[in-house]
């Protein structure tokens, strides 16, 4: 397999691990936010599954990355901070903190189904459902379907079927927009990267002129420095 294809494959596993880990954190936050023992139980078990999925994808990623040299695969190192950078969780708060309960449940309902569909592509990458990794991914797909079913059941116990359809339509659309936005970001990145590089070249002249030595602290009582100074 060509290097580019191998990298695409590693990237897919890495991104999926991030997505699953992000979902696990969302569910842990949900379990902590509710006072309902039943909901807490459901969110907790869901989080456990998502953690497990993330671990499986990280394991697949590790096995498939071993033949590479260290510096070639730095970008596939799982770093929890990447959850924010890549947008899998928001620095402004978890979904449970920002969405009304109804929207949170419908979000889970729709996105679990969409996740299951996206795993079908991963199945192709690992050589189908009969391969060792394929079996694991098939099991994950079953889990996602189960979560989807639980979310549906919970939603319908509080709201109507019609509302569920409306929410599903809205969340599917939002998901498509997120993908479109992400794809556009990548295009914009290609456009803006040289621009930032150009700005960096220009900024050098200003930066070289900045004299930070004026702000040295040698032989000063540090309490004499103004507390409002940002320099």
């Amino acid at each position, binding site marked *: 397999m060509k290097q580019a294809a191998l990298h695409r494959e590693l990237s897919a596993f890495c991104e999926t691990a991030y997505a699953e880990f992000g979902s696990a954190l969302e569910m842990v936050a949900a379990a902590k936010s509710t006072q*309902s023992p039943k909901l807490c139980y459901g969110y907790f078990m869901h989080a456990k599954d998502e953690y497990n999925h993330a671990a499986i994808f990280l394991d697949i990623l590790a096995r498939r990355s071993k033949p590479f040299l260290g510096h070639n695969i730095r970008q596939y190192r799982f770093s929890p901070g990447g959850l924010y950078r890549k947008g899998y969780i928001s620095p402004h708060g978890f979904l449970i903190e920002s969405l009304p309960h109804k929207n949170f449940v419908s979000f889970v309902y729709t996105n679990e189904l969409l996740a299951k569909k996206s795993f079908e592509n991963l199945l192709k990458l690992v050589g189908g459902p009969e391969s060792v990794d394929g079996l694991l991914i098939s099991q994950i797909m079953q889990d996602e379907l189960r979560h989807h079913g639980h979310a549906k059941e919970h939603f319908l116990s509080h709201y109507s079927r019609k509302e569920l359809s409306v929410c599903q339509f809205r969340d599917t659309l939002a998901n498509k927009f997120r993908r479109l936005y992400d794809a556009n970001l990548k295009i914009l990145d290609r456009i803006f990267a040289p621009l930032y590089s150009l700005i960096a070249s220009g900024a050098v002249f200003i930066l070289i002129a900045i004299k930070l030595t004026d702000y040295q602290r040698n032989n000063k009582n540090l309490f004499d420095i103004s507390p409002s100074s940002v320099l």
Partner: protein
Amino acid sequence: MYLGISAYNHESAAAIVSNNGILLDFSREETLSRVKCDRSFPKRSINKLLRDCHCTFDDISKVIFYERPLSSYLHPLVVAAKHFPASRALIANQLRNFTLSSTRVYSDVLSLDSRLQGKLIYCDHHLAHTLNALTYSAKQSNVCSIVVDGFGDRSTASISLIHSPSDVLELWCLQYPCSLGLFYTAITDYLGFAVNEGEYKVMGLAAYGNFSESYSKLFNQLLFWNDSLKTVCCDLKFFNYHISPLISYSELLADSLGPSRNHFETLDPSSAEFQRYADIAFAAQSTLENVLVSIFEYAYSLCQTNHFVFSGGVAMNSASLRRLASLPFVDSIVVPPSPGDAGSSIGAAMYGFIRASLPSAHSSLSLVTPSLFPTRSDQSHQHDALSLLLERHFYRLADDLESSLLLLSRLIREDHIIGIVYGDSETGPRALGHRSLICNGQSHTAVQRLNSLIKKRSLFRPTAPAMKHETAQSHYVLHQELMPVYSSMSATALANSDFAKSLPTTHVDQTARLQIVENGSLLDKILDNLRLYNISIIANSSLNLSGDPTCGDLVDGLMVCARSPLRYLLTDFGLYQKRAD
């Protein structure tokens, strides 16, 4: 009240100090977000502090940020500009990420509540570290503060003489980009460990290493103390951290040391490359210690005091403390339990308190030493919500502490591993018994199970032992200069009895990062009960799974049980046993 904040760089945290200088509460953002080394603005932590301390933003007199944001932002840029065009990517990255840097602290603070308008002040980064360390020191005047980290807001290391908590005279500093912390981080990166996270693994790996003439010669070129200039020098040709946002070591370093490690590759002591990596780690550790010794010697010549407080990320290098404590002029070294950036939020909050006390309390001011468990924690609401989960998946073996401890000691004797989520929690990064995984520290089987089955740790990494003072005295070479440090598991000690040398918690170099438990603490009570079974040492590790932050609450603790073979959990509500699946 004074709210100290650290954020945007390594580990975000917030601390709240009362109007009479007492640390009321402290919270790491990672504990609440469950994102390890979370560096986002600690909004959750701040809300938690206010909630648990029963106060509002009206009660906050000042919000103190732990660094000067513009200085922190500009210094790397100005240095990078001197290395242009090689540094083009780093400059572009810094410019692009302006809104993610600490320069946004003002807007983030205001977004919390408009009542905080006009309350935000800034503290020098190394002063925040110094005050954090000083808070834990019994002696608070005529003390030398040494801060060594990666990079703060202007320097990477500093020496200050503390005349009093409000009179801190900076006498020497090391300018970025020369940095002991970033040197060690670059080697961490080269060895395939996560930057700003895996440095302790390099320290653990170093114990397996042997002296290598070639590595030693090379590393002494990379970073050394220049006695005529009275400063640290480093050869930047071997590093990239000052010019690249992606990689912290240069190709020249990789050419000199050989291929860097693939981080997905398991580091197995029996593998062919292991010894090369260990020898490199050994050389890095020796170089770091040599330079630290020189800094301490210079600090003594400047301050003429025998009492030191040591903080900054590099102070987490527990292996170096033994050598520093052996220096003839050292009478005491105090390292705060959380010497890194998270802990400096405590120092920042203290800065607010001290400033407010000036000038009336200029000489009489003293800081109250906080508890080792300053993070308030009330799990009762969670316990109710978790009732169904507990009912379906756990048995409650005992519901009060006394009977729980009796059962627990029997379980420990039988080589079981126990998770603990009990009472208020530690500042981290070390778990000291309230958010811990413990087992019989004298049983190889139990410690191996803890490491391999639950923590899934690399084979070369040691586990820390916790014990009473008399046990430590009988079996380890304790340094009187480090006595307060042992209670927070911040220094290693050499085993000096056959018993200690044979323990599974003793590292390959015959040392252990021991914890001397406080009288009356939970671990102390557990050790009292274990006397019956002749167990005087327990292995103590943080309650988390690999890659996760230490548990904060009951949900996190139960999640560790759910995701791992851990079967027992001691909580405020009794001792639980996981049901068989």
